[in-house]
């Protein structure tokens, strides 16, 4: 059995893998070119959402949600999780038809976490909503949490279990070496019996090195946050056919995101916001909550996310090497799944059958003709 594991990437998934592997007695080193939670994991919108998941992700999202409910017992911190519920709002009859179809699809798969809301039920829950919306789709128990706090809590728990974090180290070369790998960063070398690729937007580079290229693009979902406003919104709100996710925190600030993209500058390892997209987002918000027109925006930002061609992650063993495990490409909705990634990676490392169905996430899917992309929006 391999002993030394190197996890590349100290995002939520990397920290999750480090925690579970350390817990199983592996000697784990997590390497990050910046610091834990620098990109997608630390600066995302914080949505904890089963609502609207890709069918393949539903079992994972439900398992992850159970972990979110018990977060304190896992990492000693609730990570700011507030299960206030999430609602997708239909802005017109077409939207409503989409939501009805969606609810039916999920029910037919044997799940019952998504429920349709009539117009009356919708306005009972969202009294501040503009009056033109015919209904919605809700998932009670979903909510939001604090991303950076989450990564830090998982990282610290991984450290307590013995994992070692090396930040500010960029891997520049990867070579096979007697049943394992040697990673280099400048003059420094790291030996591993097992390599775990949690490198997010930079994971594609590793896949190239490993001889199994993947269709991954780095994207930068943009977010903006307002000044503190009087409480008017309890649940997280999304739109159906326009990119929007909208929530008010306990401190009164309102976070607006949902998928409008900024510009990624991979060389500088940063993402920038773009006026056009933000203006569009602002327009959506104002049409759903007209009084928000006067709310002042305090800050905008964008995080770098790995987005796969088919918008679902790669989780599983390498197709080329038996000592590499992948967990990346969560396509801007990986935050909620963080808690179960480590469990799956640990199962794979120990050569056990994972308790959750991960076949759809195999890297091999990109080595056969590409599957048709689903029409529904799966953004956070």
């Amino acid at each position: 059995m391999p002993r030394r594991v190197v996890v590349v990437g100290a995002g939520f998934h990397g920290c999750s893998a480090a925690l579970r592997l350390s817990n199983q007695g592996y000697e784990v080193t997590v390497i990050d070119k910046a610091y834990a939670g620098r990109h997608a994991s630390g600066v995302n919108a914080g949505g904890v959402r089963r609502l609207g998941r890709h069918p393949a992700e539903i079992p994972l999202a439900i398992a992850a949600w159970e972990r979110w409910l018990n977060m304190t017992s896992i990492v000693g911190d609730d990570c700011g999780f507030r299960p206030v519920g999430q609602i997708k709002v239909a802005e017109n009859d077409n939207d409503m038809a989409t939501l009805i179809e969606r609810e039916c699809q999920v029910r037919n798969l044997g799940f019952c976490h998504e429920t349709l809301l009539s117009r009356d039920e919708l306005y009972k829950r969202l009294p501040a909503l503009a009056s033109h919306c015919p209904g919605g789709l809700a998932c009670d128990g979903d909510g939001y949490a604090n991303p950076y706090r989450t990564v830090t809590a998982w990282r610290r728990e991984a450290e307590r279990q013995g994992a070692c974090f090396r930040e500010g180290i960029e891997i520049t070369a990867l070579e096979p070496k007697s049943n394992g790998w040697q990673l280099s960063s400048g003059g420094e070398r790291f030996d591993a019996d097992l390599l775990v690729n949690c490198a997010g937007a930079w994971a594609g580079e590793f896949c190239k090195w490993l001889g199994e290229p993947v269709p991954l693009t780095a994207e930068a979902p943009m977010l903006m946050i307002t000044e503190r406003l009087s409480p008017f919104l309890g649940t997280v709100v999304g739109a159906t056919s326009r990119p929007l996710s909208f929530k008010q925190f306990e401190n009164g600030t309102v976070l607006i995101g949902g998928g409008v993209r900024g510009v990624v500058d991979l060389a500088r390892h940063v993402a920038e916001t773009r006026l056009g997209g933000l203006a569009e987002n602002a327009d959506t918000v104002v049409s759903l909550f007209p009084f928000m027109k006067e709310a002042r925006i305090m800050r905008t930002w964008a995080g770098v996310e790995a987005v796969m061609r088919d918008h679902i992650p790669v989780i599983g063993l390498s197709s080329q090497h038996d000592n590499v495990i992948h967990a990346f490409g969560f396509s801007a909705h990986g935050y909620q799944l963080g808690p179960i990634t480590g469990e799956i990676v640990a199962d794979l490392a120990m050569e056990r059958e994972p308790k959750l169905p991960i076949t759809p996430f195999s890297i091999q899917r990109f080595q056969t003709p590409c599957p048709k992309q689903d029409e529904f929006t799966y953004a956070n």
Partner: protein
Amino acid sequence: MITHDLVILGAGPAGMAAAATALKHDITPVIIDEQPAAGGQIYRALERTPLRGRHILDEEYWSGESLINGLADQRIDYRPATMVWQLTRQREVGLLHDDKVEMIRARHIILATGAMERPMPIPGWTLPGVMTAGSGQILLKSSGVVPQAPVVLAGCGPLLLLLAVQYLRAGVEVAAILDTTPRNRYCAALKYVPGALRNASTLLKGVGLLRELRRAGVRHIRDVSALRAEGSGQLERVLWKQQGDDQWQTLETPTLLLHQGVIPNTQITRAVDCHHEWDEQQLAWRPCLDEWLNTDIQGLAVAGDGGGIVGAKAAAMQGQLAGLGAALALGKLTLANSTERAQSIRKALARDTAIRPFLDVLYRPAKQWRLPDDDTLACRCEEVTGGEIRRMAKMGCRGPNQTKSFTRCGMGPCQGRMCGITVSELLADANQQSVEETGYYRLRPPFKPITLGQLAKAAEEG
């Protein structure tokens, strides 16, 4: 989106001089300024100040007139009362004027956004009645308003003395100046006097200010080593200790004006992620600039105090230099031509800034004025104390972006302007690492808050 040759941000001495120079070389600049009238902080409200007695504000203030008059040239697209809320690395500028959002693009940009006061987070600094010397001066210049007297001024630096004198001339009772310059600092600064003599006029002006204060009999308490403001709900008294004396002394006052010098306002250069360095002599961040004052971003230059504190006169010279740089970048001048024209400016600039090492050493703010104690607020907007930042450092936060995520420190309406330098220095101190390693906030647009409605309108107009 309209593309302009040159966009200058800020109509202080640097911005105005840059515009005038650009014009000479066949460039018609756009000059954006947040204030309703040109002049920056130094020549603020010069055209409309209600202080008709020209002697209250000094000659240097009135010397801004010619620069301001230059803006009247029809070829200059001068846009007062216009807020810049975004700048991208592609030189797109987001503007807000009269509730309307507009985006323009520039081939070349000169940032002339000047300086801001260094925060001085002493216990009680957030009480009503406590403000900065700079804001005291703004009130004086723009509306002739003086704070409730008697006033106490505390800290160090030329502006503090200048304001004290201006108050005296305006008939405001100055109860005391609490001077935080340590006694041994005069000796340390002494060796820079010969250099400073190259700018003897400024040196003499300082001596003149001190003399005027002494003649007026203003109580000048030197060697102040500890300071606190107290009062219930608002300032009632100021307490201080002098070096070598363990007793607190007290003065009842309704107004305390604090000052520990000025630092470059790097809000915009940070937001576009220019390369910055920590200037140990000035104890401040500044963008790294080349000989034409260009940053490491193509087509983006910085003139004046925003690139390192130089003072108003030198800022105007840098404005000229950056104007030549723009002409060079836009192909209006050859390198040989611009180099030749720059020669005399560089000489004058060297002479004027020769006084800086002396001032920087003499008025270098001591640690206790820069690092708040555990119970004192570092971030006023989100009410985060020095103690909380130190606790975050213990938890493993190496830089201000991590403490931001934990405590919201720097995420309030001022967008970290007020606490940025304090938090960087606090973390460096607590983690025993350099400020350079500690880094600074990643800043995000909007630089100044805009409303969702204003932004949404921009979408409609494409």
